[in-house]
């Protein structure tokens, strides 16, 4: 469990980091908080020739509100999301979610940029940015690209990033009137990756959803923005309608089998989450118990 030998460069600027990445191609790896990269290297699952440490780049730090966007720098650590007043005010979903990410020691180092770039399908933050309709800002040799979160995740550990690009920030639309969030996950132990989870963002008015974005995670090879949510928007939600949405959800999921859960169990848990989410967001507890598939 010792990493193979590697070279190390501490980038002095984003430009410098991009130059290093351009020079070394896919033999280089960006090092951010190291909480996913280092374990993989110690297990020799990854053996990059060189690490480009972006940890010192002040340009990638900080959380700021610009117009109606909350801009979160890539180096923002999980613990910062947890404590940030701006996040609490404008995108509390991130705060609620990040409390479920690992443990304090890991949250002190792990970063949002690292988490999104790593793209573990069981990870909380990717589902959040999908549910929030966020934009991922990346910079490469050709300049800056803005990628919708829904387009960013391509598969297990796969994203729209190319090896010579750096994820620099996430732009989250600030919460508007009537916006509410729901976050819940089922994990075997506190801090574990979820067996199934749901990050939801909604706008509720007069007891109905005028918007509902359901970001499920650990249900497929990437976070899933459930189309089934559409059934519940601008509709009077009844147990029957919720059952219909649950069936639609189960149909659109293509979960994987792993040691924690079979596909059937994941489908089942996703529908339980759907019911609990809708019941909570509409403050109608009777919806939670009503449906069984």
């Amino acid at each position, binding site marked *: 469990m010792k990493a193979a*030998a590697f070279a190390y460069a501490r980038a002095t600027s984003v430009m410098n980091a991009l130059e290093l990445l351009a020079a070394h191609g896919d033999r280089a790896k960006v090092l951010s908080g190291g909480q996913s990269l280092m374990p993989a290297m110690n297990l020799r699952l990854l053996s990059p020739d060189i690490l480009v440490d972006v940890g010192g780049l002040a340009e990638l730090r900080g959380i700021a509100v610009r117009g109606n966007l909350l801009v979160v720098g890539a180096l923002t650590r999980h613990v910062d999301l947890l404590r940030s007043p701006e996040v609490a005010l404008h995108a509390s979903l991130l705060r609620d979610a990040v409390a479920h990410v690992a443990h304090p020691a890991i949250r002190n180092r792990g970063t949002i940029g690292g988490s999104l770039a790593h793209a573990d399908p069981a990870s909380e933050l990717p589902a959040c940015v999908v549910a929030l309709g966020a934009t991922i800002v990346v910079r490469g040799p050709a300049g800056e690209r803005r990628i919708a979160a829904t387009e960013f995740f391509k598969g297990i550990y796969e994203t729209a990033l190319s090896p010579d690009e750096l994820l620099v920030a996430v732009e989250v639309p600030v919460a508007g009137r009537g916006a509410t969030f729901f976050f819940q996950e089922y994990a075997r132990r506190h801090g574990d990756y979820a067996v199934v989870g749901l990050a939801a963002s909604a706008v509720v008015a007069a007891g109905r959803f005028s918007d509902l974005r359901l970001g499920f995670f650990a249900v497929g090879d990437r976070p899933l923005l459930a189309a089934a949510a559409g059934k519940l928007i601008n509709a009077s939600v009844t147990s029957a309608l919720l059952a219909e949405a649950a069936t639609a959800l189960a149909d659109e999921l293509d979960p994987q089998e792993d040691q924690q859960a079979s596909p059937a169990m994941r489908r089942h848990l996703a529908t339980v989450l759907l019911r609990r989410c809708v019941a909570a967001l509409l403050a109608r507890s009777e919806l939670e118990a009503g449906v069984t598939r």
Partner: protein
Amino acid sequence: MTVTRAPAETLSVLDRPNSYIGKTVPRPNLDRLLQGRGQYVSDLELPRMAHVVFLRSPYAHARIVAIDADAARRMSGVIAVVTGRELEAVITPWVGVLSHLKGLKSAPQHAIAVDRACWQGEAVAAIVATSRAAAEDAMEHVVVDYEELAAVTDMRTALDPATPVIHASLGDNLAFERTLDAGDVDQALSDSEVVEAEFVFGRHTGVTLEPRAVVADWNAAEARLTIYQGTQAPHMVQNIAALHLRLKEAQVRVVCKDVGGSFGIKVHIYADEMATYALSKLLRRPIKFVADRVESFNTDIHARDHRCRGRIGVRSDGTITAFEIDDLTGIGPYSMYPRTSAIEANQVVNLVGGPYVTANYRARARVVFQNKNVMCQYRAVGHPIACSITEGLVDLAASKIGMDPVEIRRRNLISDDAYPCASPSGMKFEQLSHHASLAKLLQMMDYGALRAEQAALRTRNIHRGIGFASFIEVTNPSATFYGVGGAKISSQDGVAVRLDAQGSVICQTSITEQGQGSESLTAQIVGSVLGVSMERVRVILGDTDNTPYGGGTWASRGAGIGGEAALQAAKALRQNILDVAAAILQSRPAGLDIVNNRIVNADDGAPRIELNELARIVYFRPDTLPPGIQPELMATRHFVPRQYPFAFTNGVQASWLEVDTETGFVTLLKHWVVEDCGTIINPQLVDEQIRGGVVQGLGAALFEKCIYDERGQLTNANMADYLVPMSGEMPDIEIGHVVSPTQETELGAKGAGEAGTAGAAAAVANAVNDALRPFGATITEIPLTPQVILTALGRI
């Protein structure tokens, strides 16, 4: 605390003024450990020390056709690449059998596989280099040509004629079989209600914080091997290393400093550790081996992989008429050395039904070979299996006749005044306290109120359950455990105590410390009996050159056996000191006592002479002593239990939990334990042993499982996928005691290290079934994962 026997008429040596016995005193080694000054094997650096890593078989079963290490040998930092064949010249193979386990068979096991690897993780070559990293780099360049062989993985088919035999020389895959038939089971079952179930247990392991670690240092000039190892049994390691390296025991010294947890994992002889000793001898330099986490999962012994059919007979009045079990366990390709892998199944047979008066008991246990990592003794060996079967059956019986689980236990537990007595399997009980323990438990948990709360919550679709588990626990084993079977594992322990020139005390003990507080309890006993304050007592353990000969710390024996030796040694030294004091003071020894580091009058407590002054006279001015006096300020005593093969303890646990019947997730809300380990030397140490034990049992109940695929690949050999219990999921664990000291020793202590593990999973499983009662679901499988629970509920 409830004491079941009236105190003796006279003050015992333990009730002296300022006694530390029964007090929570801080462990003397705490400051050292908390300040980072512990000395673990990993910390050790010796001149010319090299590091070994083992290339391990990726196959569960494979022939080793060829090993090409030329490229690796040429790499920088590499000292040697050694195969099993080459190492065979230095170290002989072994066979893990004991003669008292009749019919137990196993095949010769090599330090490094020769010709054939029999589980995924068995070492096939050793790479020795100047650093672990360099050795790992080189390992990637050792090319092994394997021919994959059919792997035997499913214990249920291991004995089928169509299944390949792992060791042709043994004829079949059956390592051991034991049957027992006591009373008349058929008759008993024929006029009872009979309930039957299959109990399935997850194979799991101990997961010590510090992995197995060893530094072996062969000194060719002295022809002596020093082994620094985190082990529970230094003298056993000495004996076995010497035997297989063809040395005299005197040529091997085993030093065991701080150990980061053991739980039974570190009481065995592992092939890679043997290989490390042999490599040191072969290469004539110190070699360090520290298992990493992945190889720990692949090679630290596993345990508890059992499937057992159980039957219970019960009458409508709650009388349990019979127990019957048919247990099957798969132990990997070899019986572990030297304690063997048959002990666990043997214990299951010994212990099922143990808390109850039921005299009719039939059992069969079969132990089979398979191509998985070896299984052997882990904390509470066999007890969690036996307890889960027994208590699971008792709850099923209660449910069948509509009786409260407490009531059926009350009606069948052995009465507290029935001792001494024996179980149908021949276990001898000196004094247990099942009823007093149960009564105390019910009071602690407020059983009536809890049942009312459960009923009220059920109406709101909240499903909580209460589960009980009575248990018995083997502690203080005598020579009948291993010695009679021919293993050179000492069941006796020795303690030497001496008074130094400034009145401080040095105490050498053969028991060892892996975090449970052996050092503390020894100092407490010695200080109390001598009348010396604890900070003056220095305890030395874990060094075969510098401690008396003894067994070490395992099987809940340290306090009961090593503690009694300490007590007797301290008593002897005290007498010697009083003899000298009497000579100096021209008094009678009986008229004097030692209190607070000074000699006092026994009657009025008036101070007579300080211990340091006495020591000064003895060591520096013996000329002033009366003629004919030869002071002996050192005393050694040994102790071994002879009367009872084991000092059984008992207790009862209860679990209160909630099942989310939509998701299958279990939340543990509270856990209670009442146990009876006899004399309690340090209440905090005992309670934390119980708590830690319970946590390991809860891990088994809900989380821990080594998941093998059908090809014998361990698929979760890391801390992300193998789920150990963590504090966030653990309930508060409340502990109470009943005290029935063993009369076999003056100390009266029995063991406390394993009781928590024995019953925790059984209590949880019973509580889950209690919670699921309205759904008509019964689960007799652990770990109780959400997948298992949802499946039982028919949700998926």
